[in-house]
């Protein structure tokens, strides 16, 4: 917090910030003088005309923001920052707080200027008649009317628009500061200057810049609101910048483990989302043309073609495989610790079941939510009669996950090294799901299979029940705790001899 106060204090009394805010005031005054003749305009029209103009914003970015950012980048020393702040993450946090304070001070200066102009006359708490009425092709995007269409009060619009621009500045700053913190000063400087330069080029828009690389929709709320998915792209860029800076810090400490990420909870959430997005995209590319068709395709299972089946069957299988890797990671020593903690094998197993069932449910909810979002965004004007299909399909898929988890548990209880057989079990589930031995009516390895939307519960009820029955039988088997009582498991605590 001290860093933020320092930044605020350094910025509010600096000549740079004062000159820059005077420059912004000059832009506002210039527009105010230009609109003297327009009837029905008030103070907010020139204010938003200047503050959301990408040219003004990129001038502030290049002429003021970089003068605060670049010295921070150049003076960064990794060892010094470790001694001073304790860890790279804390160093990054302190520097970002400092920049936040500096930015806040600039905002306060500009706000004081606006209040000063407002006191001189023309002040109102509401949008002007011009801003409320003028919505048309000929009008500039950078005007109060763009925001008046979305916000009821100009004060709220001012706060949101300033925050948006501030987030854009900070998302550029956080990556370069992270790079500087770990000692890559030149890379940090290159990133900051390149982004500033690119924002400047984009604000002229000399050519039709593709939406996803347009820096203007990152910096100006009015511009972002005017482009399709503009605000979404900006939010994605903020998230991506945060993720990149975290990754940079982790790499610097040698703490980034691909395997731990992939097999961990976050990795499985990402896998579930990615597989569902991939499946929906493939479905659309193969000719699915409405959201009802997409959901029916998703739950077609053994009635669909092999590629569709494998894409969807991969989701439960990958979820359970992550559990398998977590089990396989436990060495004998770790299991002893767990048994000591939980008191008995039964209690540990019950704990494991509770945790894994809850997480599996969470992953499936994420996957189904992604599917619904994909259906709504691929076919926004399609009817929503398909919601009825989702419940039987996802219940059946969850029961399938339970069955796969029980077979995993049996493998683990049989012998820890038997988990090597899990890929074989997974392959068996995939094969049996597409070529069911008990017939299509009793397809326990893909119980969610529906041949057409009209028979949702009728199609999945019996396979789901059979799946649950097999899971119950296997679950009772897994309580035999074969390997823990076998002589090959020489535990000093739980062996029978003691």
């Amino acid at each position, binding site marked *: 917090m001290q860093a933020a106060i320092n930044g605020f204090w350094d910025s509010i009394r600096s000549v740079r910030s004062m000159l820059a805010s005077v420059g912004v005031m000059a832009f506002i005054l210039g527009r105010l003088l230009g609109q003297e003749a327009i009837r029905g305009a008030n103070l907010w029209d020139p204010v938003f005309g200047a503050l959301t103009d990408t040219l003004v914003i990129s001038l502030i970015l290049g002429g003021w923001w970089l003068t605060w950012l670049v010295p921070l980048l150049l003076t960064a020393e990794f060892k010094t920052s470790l001694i001073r702040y304790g860890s790279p993450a804390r160093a990054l946090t302190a520097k970002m707080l400092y920049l936040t304070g500096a930015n806040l001070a600039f905002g306060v200066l500009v706000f004081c200027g606006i209040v000063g102009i407002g006191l001189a006359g023309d002040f109102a708490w509401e949008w002007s008649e011009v801003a409320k009425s003028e919505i048309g092709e000929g009008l500039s995007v950078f005007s109060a009317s763009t925001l008046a269409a979305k916000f009821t009060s100009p004060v709220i619009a001012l706060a949101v628009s300033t925050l948006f621009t501030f987030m854009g500045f900070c998302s550029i700053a956080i990556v370069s500061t992270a790079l500087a913190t770990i000692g890559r000063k030149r890379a940090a400087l290159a990133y900051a200057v390149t982004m500033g330069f690119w924002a400047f080029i984009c604000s002229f828009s000399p050519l039709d810049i593709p939406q996803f690389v347009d820096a203007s929709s990152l910096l100006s709320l009015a511009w972002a609101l005017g482009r399709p998915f503009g605000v979404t792209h900006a939010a994605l860029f903020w998230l991506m910048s945060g993720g990149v800076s975290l990754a940079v810090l982790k790499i610097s400490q040698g703490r980034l483990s691909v395997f731990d990420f*992939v097999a961990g909870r976050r990795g499985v959430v990402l896998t579930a989302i990615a597989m569902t997005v991939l499946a929906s995209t493939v479905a659309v590319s193969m000719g699915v043309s409405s959201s009802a068709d997409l959901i029916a395709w998703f739950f077609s299972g053994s009635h669909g073609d092999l*590629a569709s089946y494998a894409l969807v069957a*991969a989701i439960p299988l*990958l979820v359970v*495989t992550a559990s398998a*890797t977590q089990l396989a990671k436990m060495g004998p020593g770790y299991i002893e610790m767990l048994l000591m903690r939980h008191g008995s094998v039964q209690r540990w197993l019950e704990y494991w079941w509770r945790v894994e069932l809850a997480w599996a449910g969470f992953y499936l909810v994420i996957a189904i939510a992604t599917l619904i979002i994909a259906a709504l965004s691929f076919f926004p004007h399609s009817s929503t009669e398909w919601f009825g299909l989702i419940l039987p399909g996802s219940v059946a898929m969850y029961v399938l996950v339970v069955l796969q988890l029980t077979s995993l548990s049996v493998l683990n209880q049989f012998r820890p090294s038997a988990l090597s057989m899990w890929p074989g079990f997974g392959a068996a589930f*995939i094969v049996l799901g597409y070529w069911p031995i008990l017939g299509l009516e009793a397809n326990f390895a893909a119980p969610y299979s529906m041949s057409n939307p009209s028979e949702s519960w009728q199609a999945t009820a019996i396979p789901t029940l059979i799946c649950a029955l097999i899971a119950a039988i296997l679950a009772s088997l897994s309580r035999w705790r074969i390997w823990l009582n076998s002589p090959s498991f020489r535990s000093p605590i739980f062996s029978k001899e003691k």
Partner: protein
Amino acid sequence: MNADIWGRHSLHRLPRLPVGAVGFLLICALGLVVGFGEVSTSGYRSWVQVFHEFTNGPDRVIFPVIVSLVAGVPLANELSNRFIVNTRTREDLRKHLGRLAFRGIAKAGFGFATLLMVYAVAAFAVSPNLFPGAVDPEAYGLEAASGAYAIDATDGAFANLANYGWPVLAIFSALWAGANAAIFAGVAVVSLLLIDKTIVALSIPFALYLFESVVTQILDLPGMSFLITAIHPVGLQEFDLAQVFAPTILLGLSTWVTLTVLIAQAPHNPRFS
């Protein structure tokens, strides 16, 4: 100046020969020479067909060999000189294996994606300037205007994408070849972890590639043959997207499951002790 965070300078690390990069350059040069040689002497129905001519180069056959060399050789070296065994007290074994596997898979995938992009540029941007007469739809009995992007049923499963402009087709083809290369790289890593003999393990991807192609083509399922679809799905027969995607998805899924379980169990694997 160029020190990392612990103060080590990059000079302290031994320089490595860029074997992978040089290899990809050679394949790329070979493919371009063969492709331009064909285009200079033949007439085609459309520029999409010219692109297919480039993808039908020698790398369609040696693809799994290159992939297993790029992805497998660093791991094979570390396995054979007991580097992993000697250093596993210094670094977590799963983390080390995960990084090796990820690097190999990423290199192979990125390399083949780039290769396909180069072929697309050669076919759609360079060839029209070098050999403007190479596409002659009228010789096929088509009208010139419709023939420029005339898509035929035998033109391959992705050819319809050319209607959105050739960069779309190029990007999708690059992603497809990259995904296949990454999956075969994963197969190479899995077979290295499972099989003791390095040379046998490294030849498993090629054997799988050929065996799967022979079986599916005998079964009259050309769209499922890796030889026909892995680099770019185009052949003499007609096939649909579902056939093309199925073997890649299944192989990718089984490779992913096996690789994660193998790496999770690596500390109990006698090869690393």
